[in-house]
């Protein structure tokens, strides 16, 4: 009777240990899925900021040739300055995402990254409003559309991996 009881107890203990191993294994899987997404998002983020700089360069070059006046160029660049601040914010959240362990924290940070990048996107188009020259407006709009596509790619990646669906 005593032998049978010990055998059953040992079996329960081993099952418990195995269940614990499986739980920890799945936790290990979850925490390691971050890097590839953070890498892809960062690559796209760098591309995005190069696009914003291309817009700034195009506008300042146009100012040199008199296509746009200095006051309007200033308005454009001041808005782009806000855009870069939001991009800095997004990169800080990305860094936190790299270290975040719980799905809830990851989802919250992913939401903040999306919000910051949405500001980058809308801010970029707002920046173009003072431009009156049609040719210049068309050129920089094309650059802004490319940036917008990159924001879309980032948001899709982040959404797929981190944002918890209701």
């Amino acid at each position, binding site marked *: 009777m*005593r032998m049978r009881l*010990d055998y059953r*107890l*040992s079996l329960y*203990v081993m099952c*418990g*240990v195995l269940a*614990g*191993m*499986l*739980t*920890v*294994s*799945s*936790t*290990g*899987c979850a925490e*390691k*899925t*971050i*890097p*590839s997404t*953070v*890498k*892809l998002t*960062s*690559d796209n*983020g*760098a*591309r*995005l*900021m*190069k696009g*914003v*700089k291309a817009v*700034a*360069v195009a506008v*300042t070059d146009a100012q040199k040739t008199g296509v746009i006046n*200095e*006051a309007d*160029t*200033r308005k454009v*660049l*001041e808005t*782009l*300055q806000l855009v*870069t*601040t939001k*991009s*800095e914010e997004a*990169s800080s959240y*990305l*860094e936190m995402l*790299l270290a975040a362990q719980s799905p809830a924290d990851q989802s919250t940070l992913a939401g903040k990254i999306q919000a910051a990048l949405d500001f980058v996107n809308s801010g970029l188009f707002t920046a173009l409003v003072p431009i009156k020259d049609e040719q210049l407006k068309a050129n920089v709009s094309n650059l802004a559309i490319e940036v917008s596509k990159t924001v879309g790619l980032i948001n899709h990646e982040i959404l797929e991996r981190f944002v918890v669906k209701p």
Partner: protein
Amino acid sequence: MPINEDLVKYTQLLGMINGLIPVAITLGTTVGGLVKEAIAAGRGDAATVEEAQLALANFRAATADTKSFIDTWLAEHPPTA
């Protein structure tokens, strides 16, 4: 004083559980990491933490470069009164 054999056995079992917990955690974390890497490799987007950090540094550098360009232009062209 008589020795309670059941108590001895249960104490031994508790000792065994205590010893197995850290082993299980270590094994579990290692297995979890390896499984994830295998899945990521199969998906074609395997990236180490170092690669992610490098990409993040590039993102920061691109942002800083753009910000610097804008700040410089604005500093060189102060608003006219």
